[in-house]
């Protein structure tokens, strides 16, 4: 996937993300979360340049009954 530019995470966008997650944060927690969300999103964005093609995710499911 070609790297897609991301706009800086503004207050409104953060509020929308938190509302989407149904996570109600007070002013102080919301202020602390902003930089952490930006950092985490930046990590995912750094994977934009990796072509995964048909690669499946590294998650496991065993259909056998234990």
């Amino acid at each position, binding site marked *: 996937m070609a790297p897609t530019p991301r706009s800086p995470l503004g207050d409104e966008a953060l509020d929308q993300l938190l509302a989407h997650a149904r*996570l109600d944060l007070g002013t102080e*927690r919301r202020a*602390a979360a902003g930089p952490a969300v930006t950092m985490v999103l930046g990590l*995912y964005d750094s994977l934009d340049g990796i072509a*995964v093609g048909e*690669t499946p*995710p*590294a998650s496991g499911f065993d259909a056998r009954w234990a």
Partner: protein
Amino acid sequence: MRPHELSIAEAARQIERRTLSPVELVQSALDRIEEVEGRLNAFVAVTAEQALEAARQAEEEIGDGGYRGPLHGIPVGIKDLYDTAGLPTTSSSAVRSDHLATEDSACVARLRDAGAVVVGKTHTHEFAYGVLTPTTRNPWDTGRVPGGSSGGSGAAVAAGECLVGMGTDTGGSIRIPASVCGTVGLKPTFGRVSRFGITSLCWSLDHAGPLTRTVRDAALTLQVLAGFDARDPGSAKEPVPDFTADLDAGVRGLTLGVPTNYFFDDVDPEVESAVREAIGVLEAQGATLRDVEIPYADQMMAVEFGVLVPEASAYHQEMLRESGDRYTDDVRVFLDAGETVLATQYIKALRVRTLVQQAFRRAFEGLDALVCPTLPAAAAEVGQQTFTFPGGREKTVIDAWVGHAAPGNVTGLPALSVPCGYTSAGLPIGLQVIGRPFDEGGVLRVGQAYGSATDWSSRRPAL
């Protein structure tokens, strides 16, 4: 030498010959706890009465000819993420202060079946989500952190409060405290040891394993812990070999990969010097060294945290809403942040993880193991936020330490940390050995070869 200073192997030898009683050994560990806990605070809870009762039972059983093996009568500390029947599993968090375990986790059950004696629950960085373990101090310098998240087990083993401490490792949480506390730490292959009954940080990256004072002790403990368990969806149906069989086979004939990137990119010069000297010791013993490039170096932390952060938030989703104010700030902020991750972003990280695994398989062609620094820097001071590396590059403590550990978690490969020297400030340095899938025997063999040629493991902190 006091009994609590013995290795498991030596204590077991004496217990089997009945020249050392389990009661004497456990009492010695409890006395040591009494002696140093005021300075270390490695334990959430010490179970002295139950431990002495278990030691008396062990003594009686051995006296009746019922010796169970090398862990019979050995004092162990259990990281407070592991359920231990009848005791709280607090995860060193106010959120779980009254969370009582009704059943033993798989590891604790296996340890008890082998006759090991639980002397207490050791501190973790809250819910294993961090590398500092702020409750606890480093035995080599109580002004410094013991690493984490299994910092209580690292401090306790290094100080002689128990002979083995159980840890978990999602982003280095066994190897980090092992390295900075000067113990051996073994993160087995993903799937080798059951995580049933262990509080999860990230199902896809969590591993369980031991911290010990010697490589042989790690092998003896893994022997007890390893094996398939259908209750853990990540458990692997893989035969369990004798982990001590080739322990003393040496490294002659082995080819060890020495990374040309990533692991030596931002490293404290004292650490680099000690690790390169250690690699030289292995070469002098007959190992062939070969340069190797670590694949996906630039994406490693994105995959590690890209998988970890949303899984941790998923685990804590309900507790975060019910008891959010009871988390410490540094943990809560990332639990909050993980709530905003899209499923497609998480799955992208899992897909790149597959590519990393495939690339490591290619990188390992012709290699028996990789050897590199466990961490780029020794123990941080309490309150220290960053390390500054040559060239002026600054990294947070968590990024610096997890960066060196993450390849082991992302690939699931077995990884061992063994002491390989000390900084000029007297702080331990660790050599990391990363092996092929389910070749714990191989990494233990390399670690044992190095440990036998040096005496770092015999040093004790002057508490």
